[in-house]
């Protein structure tokens, strides 16, 4: 795939944000808060960083992306459509009976999807298994696992964090969408993750902290992660519902259904950017 530069990636991400909002509206609601806070990260991966070919979704040396925070499917599915894994016409079926996709992604139904996820804390250990298997075969593929910040409350994330460091998985990169909100409220009021950098570093991971809405910083981080010994976590500071001007930073937009007026307001807001 042709690689977009930082500026083009920013525009692309905002286009897909609108696709996600329209899709969420047609579905009667979706996890737009996390789907949009992680949109720049997923766009950078699919339109620049990852070695993928939507015409050959089974290519053996393709890079793998696991949406561990499966509820961000409302953002992920339109990214896959935009990348060309399937027609954008299908997006209007989201959450409908017999649709290939809905709230959480099913790998058997969505071309380009590497793992079925939904319940939190599964993606990172699946990524550990993939990283070990690919390394055994001397396959150069990289594995990227996108985690929600609240997801790291799950103990299995830390089991996998220990395992990845023990096995020195250079080919594994985790990204945390640190939008500072979980479902019940601001994450510091629920259960704080701080000191988040130190926690991951103490588990033996390389830690890179970035502005998760700055494409240049994201691209630099992914490039830097590629050359590291051992697993790398990119902790991306983000805003919940990034791009929807009426909702940015609001934990109540973890799940919601935008109105036509709100979609139009967002379109104008993003076009001005």
């Amino acid at each position, binding site marked *: 795939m042709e690689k977009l530069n930082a500026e083009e990636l920013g525009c692309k991400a905002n286009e897909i944000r609108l696709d996600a909002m329209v899709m969420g509206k047609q579905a009667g609601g979706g996890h737009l808060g996390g789907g949009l806070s992680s949109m720049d990260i997923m766009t950078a991966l699919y339109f620049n960083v990852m070695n993928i070919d939507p015409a050959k979704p089974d290519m053996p040396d393709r890079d793998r992306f696991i949406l561990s925070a499966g509820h961000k499917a409302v953002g992920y599915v339109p990214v896959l459509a935009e990348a060309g894994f399937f027609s954008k016409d299908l997006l209007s079926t989201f959450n409908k009976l017999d649709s290939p996709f809905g709230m959480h992604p099913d*790998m*058997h139904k969505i071309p380009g999807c*590497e*793992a*079925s*996820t*939904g*319940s939190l*804390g*599964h993606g990172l*250990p*699946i*990524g*550990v*298994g*993939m*990283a*070990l*298997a*690919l390394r*055994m*075969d001397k*396959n150069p593929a990289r594995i990227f696992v996108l985690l929600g910040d609240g997801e790291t409350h799950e*103990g*299995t994330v830390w*089991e*996998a964090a*220990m*395992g990845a460091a*023990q*096995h020195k998985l250079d080919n594994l990169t985790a990204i945390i969408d640190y939008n500072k909100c979980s479902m019940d409220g601001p994450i510091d009021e629920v259960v704080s993750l701080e000191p988040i950098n130190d926690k991951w570093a103490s588990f033996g991971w390389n830690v890179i902290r970035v502005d998760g809405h700055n494409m240049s910083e994201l691209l630099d981080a992914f490039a830097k992660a590629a050359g590291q010994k051992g697993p790398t976590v990119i902790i991306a500071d983000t805003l919940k519902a990034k791009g929807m001007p009426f909702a940015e930073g609001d934990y109540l937009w973890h799940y919601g259904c935008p109105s036509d007026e709100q979609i139009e307001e967002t379109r104008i807001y993003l076009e001005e950017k």
Partner: protein
Amino acid sequence: MPGLNMADIEKMSARDAFGSALVAAGEKNPNLVLLGADAIGSTRAAAFADRFPERTFNFGIAEQEMVSAAAGFALCGKVPIATAYGFLISLRACEQVRDDICYQNLNVKLMSTHAGLSMAAGGTTHHSTEDVAIMRSFANMTIVAPSDALETVKAVQAVIDYNGPVYLRMGRGSLESVYSSEFVFEVGKSIQLRDGGDVTLIAYGIMVAEALKAAESLALEGIEARVINMHTIKPLDEAAVLKAANDTGCIVTAEEHNIIGGLGEAVAGCTSAAVPVPVLRVGINDIFCGIGPEDGLRAKLGLTAADITAAAKKAVALKR
């Protein structure tokens, strides 16, 4: 079986047989990988680890990570064998088994040891008496439970050759020999060990030997029992169950497991829809089992040949 002969296998505990069978399978299939959770020694998977260290991965005491990682291995073309005690795979890693293995329908072999009450003095926390019920309720899952060392060897190879998620349930210590001669083991196809026309005894695992003993004592009283080793609990060999119902008119099931959700319910569910006959269930009567030596616990809980014999007489009396 390369490198294994029957005389050697018969002297082994089921766990040792398991280790030997794994090595044999590893020689044949270079994609086989072994995953453990700090119990590679006590599950006897160590034989594989010694032979193939580059294909062995120890996750420490992190069974949930191990099961999810097994899915990752399978997604990249490996055939992972994830090993742990039964209660840890079925209870601790329950959701990982459902979501990552069964829902994704991956070719992962969950090989559990220390089934049923075989960790007897370990007490309730270490007993595996709900695992069959849990695994039965997951779509795409196949459950296999061999009855002796020889069958363990055959079952290990058969489930590795079988494509799809499998839960293999093995005991801890020595099992009485059920088989004295060669036989064919096929996943999903039960084995009739004895014929009789008055009642059918259907069992798996350690209870198969008890069922055979029960059949002998029933014969002394003029009751001829058919004995079926239902080594594959899911998918159930419905043809064999319905034939038994038609031929003998009543059934007794026996399992070292809670009677809720186990083989007994599977058999009763099968017969009630097609050939409704009395089905009596010998098993753990929905209690936590406490501590004691294996034999003592089984006797206390009603899991002996005598208990099967008594149930068989009741079943015969219930026939119309």
